[in-house]
């Protein structure tokens, strides 16, 4: 007897196919297209490789090797510093975890670009800090120090660290609930080890495998970021990512070929850096194991835990300054060196034809659409898994959601936009879809945990009461999971708001969001208008987070058991 069609084509099958076709396949095709074009094959341009012309053009770019070195150095340094600080700060503040979580949550929503724009003004030679010092120190001119756009990329590293440390701390706090941290800490100390030593010998080796994927994602991001590198990075030459993005924008369409080679170089460089980090961690592990076997107690190290705690406080202070200065500049009329405050305030930048309203509407729509689509895809997969008896995030999907996070965006998007030249896709649709590629993994990862933790007895009870699978999903699961659903959507929203490259490359400059406008305006003469866009860019995700926290609390106000689900 043939099974009915709906039984063969399961929800899991449909949603899996949708995710594969809409998210995973395009990412891979993008890379493959970059690879073909990078080796001289792009039929659209009449280029029929394989040949090495594109590579020759790329290698002939002035300053290419320095750009490669700067990318590698800034990416690896930012990742290592962020990881070290995150471990150090959690070790120093492990008794204040819930406080830490509360402080960091709002900062996580602020996009890189907004932070970078704010930071650039805070630390510039004529910036807020220098203005604060100028009167006291009698500086008549700003100091001659390259504190932004320095050739070593230190400002870029700081900008990346500012954003990645809170992210990695939150990841670490999540991972640390998976190991018996309190008990092992007590056991280690009872054997005469200091806190720092227990972290080094016992906790870090167990936490590292749990946070390895996010750390690698941070590395891939740091090495290939374009918006932050444009604002804070060196200019002559810039980082490899900026150089490749510029090639891509060359009026001569044939520059697409060397740009594709650049995308491949970026990919190889990132893979190499990941290998380095992995190998470095293994070697460090071997040395640590040897030291541990000697029974080194390292009690004196505990006093040094104050260092990461202080550095974290310093970073948070910089973040607050950076965000505050954006708001301040957005209501400034004139503010000149060396005044610590604006001479005149004005709402002109908000009232003028700054275009922020349409940019905000566009950004809001794209974020809403992409996080909504991502949420539906994720729910489809997880619910399909429940029905098929294969719960949670497993199998190929585990690897699939990691893919868009580990590949440099540039490498994927250059290939994809090359393909889009052929397709007649409305720019708005292309952009929303481009955002889904990068929003989906975050939404999926955020939702998979709470979904798997759902008490299965609730389902059985509902089924015993005669509720079918759709009724159980709509009337039991989704309402119970309202808080994590909202938070996953808010996370997706924030990720979408922050996207720069997908909007630029797939929208072909015809879709203006808060992020693309803020980045474009940051290289203009009017800091006030740039500040309006950056303030909105930072504020919008934050408001959505707030709504995601408040809404379930209001809806479930009489349901005590559902209130704690927010974390």
């Amino acid at each position, binding site marked *: 007897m043939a099974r009915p069609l709906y039984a063969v084509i399961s929800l899991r099958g449909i949603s899996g196919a949708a995710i594969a076709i809409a998210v995973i396949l395009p990412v891979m095709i993008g890379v493959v297209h970059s690879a073909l074009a990078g080796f001289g094959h792009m039929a659209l341009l009449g280029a029929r490789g394989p040949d090495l012309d594109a590579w020759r053009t790329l290698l002939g770019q002035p300053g290419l090797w320095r750009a490669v070195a700067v990318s590698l150095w800034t990416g690896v340094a930012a990742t290592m510093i962020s990881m070290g600080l995150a471990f150090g700060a959690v070790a120093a503040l492990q008794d204040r975890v819930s406080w830490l979580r509360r402080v960091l949550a709002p900062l996580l929503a602020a996009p890189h670009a907004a932070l970078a724009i704010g930071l650039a003004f805070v630390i510039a030679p004529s910036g807020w800090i220098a203005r604060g010092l100028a009167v006291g120190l009698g500086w008549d001119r700003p100091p001659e120090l390259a504190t932004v756009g320095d050739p070593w990329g230190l400002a870029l590293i700081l900008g990346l660290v500012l954003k990645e440390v809170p992210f990695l701390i939150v990841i670490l706090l999540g991972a640390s609930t998976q190991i018996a941290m309190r008990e092992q800490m007590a056991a280690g100390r009872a054997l005469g080890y200091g806190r720092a030593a227990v972290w080094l010998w016992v906790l870090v080796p167990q936490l590292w495998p749990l946070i390895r994927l996010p750390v690698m994602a941070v590395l891939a991001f740091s090495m290939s970021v374009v918006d932050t590198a444009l604002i804070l990075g060196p200019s002559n030459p810039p980082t490899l990512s900026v150089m490749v993005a510029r090639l891509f924008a060359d009026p001569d369409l044939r520059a697409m070929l060397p740009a594709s080679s650049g995308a491949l170089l970026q990919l190889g460089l990132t893979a190499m850096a990941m290998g380095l980090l992995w190998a470095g961690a293994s070697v460090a592990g071997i040395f640590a194991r040897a030291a*541990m076997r000697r*029974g080194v107690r390292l009690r004196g190290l505990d006093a040094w835990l104050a260092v990461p705690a202080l550095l974290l406080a310093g970073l948070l202070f910089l973040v607050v300054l950076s965000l505050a200065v954006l708001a301040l500049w957005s209501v400034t009329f004139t503010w000149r060196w060396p005044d610590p405050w604006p001479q005149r305030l004005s709402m002109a930048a908000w009232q003028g034809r700054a275009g922020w309203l349409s940019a905000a509407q566009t950004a809001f729509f794209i974020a809403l659409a992409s996080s909504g689509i991502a949420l539906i895809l994720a729910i489809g997969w997880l619910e399909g898994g429940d029905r098929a008896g294969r719960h949670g995030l497993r199998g190929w999907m585990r690897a699939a959601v990691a893919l868009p996070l580990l590949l440099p965006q540039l490498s994927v998007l250059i290939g994809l936009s090359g393909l889009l030249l052929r397709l007649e896709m409305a720019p708005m649709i292309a952009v929303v879809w481009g955002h889904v590629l990068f929003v989906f993994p975050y939404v999926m990862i955020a939702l998979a945990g709470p979904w798997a933790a759902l008490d299965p007895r609730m389902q059985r009870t509902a089924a015993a009461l005669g509720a079918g699978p759709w009724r159980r999903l709509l009337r039991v699961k989704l309402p119970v999971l309202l808080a994590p659903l909202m938070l996953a959507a808010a996370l997706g929203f924030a990720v979408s708001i922050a996207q720069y490259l997908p909007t630029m490359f797939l929208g072909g400059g015809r879709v203006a969001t808060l992020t693309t406008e803020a980045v474009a305006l940051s290289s203009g003469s009017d800091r006030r208008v740039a500040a309006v866009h950056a303030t909105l860019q930072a504020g919008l995700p934050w408001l959505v987070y707030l709504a995601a926290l408040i809404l379930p609390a209001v809806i479930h106000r009489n349901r005590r058991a559902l209130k704690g689900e927010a974390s």
Partner: protein
Amino acid sequence: MSLKLSRLSVRAPDGATLFAGLDLTVVAGEVATVTGPSGAGKSTLLDAIGGHLSPGFHVTGRVFLDGRDVTDLPAEARGIGVMFQQAVLFPHLSVADNLAFGLSPAIRGRLARRMAVAEALAQAGLDGMGARDPATLSGGQRARAALMRTLLADPKAVLLDEPFSALDPGRRHDIREFVLATIRRSRIPALLVTHDRQDADAAGGPVVALT
């Protein structure tokens, strides 16, 4: 060697006083027992002595170890070993490395340290299990390994937090005999927390009942 508690008392973050003014002296080789129903604060007492209280708990009274006041020292500086209910072995290390982790740094040299660990394993009846993943050990084996790890650190006193309660009744007797005998042989004071009469009887030392 002796462990002495003088008017020891702990105030919980909610303001409740868990046990009022406890006085107790345990001499070397003796195993004192603390009994009481769950919630009486048995584990909190051990945390207070070992220095493992969470922030928010407040200790009054004093803890002396060989006449030295250790009340205000951090846990790692007190020299008080703890054997926990769940025999907390570090899951990323082999059994031998777990023991090596405990072994006092006073023992120097790769060979000497390996010998010391091998000897401890043999004493605990864990011969040849050094390379094993702790997760593959039985409950009794884990308890014995944890005790050896605690003793290798050369503690001046040992606290035992219901170390036998998670073991199956058949093995319980043997493990208890092994633990108590090993501690007596080490000539250090020990404090055993339990809610089991038989444990207290076997320990043989003074008994404090918390209510």
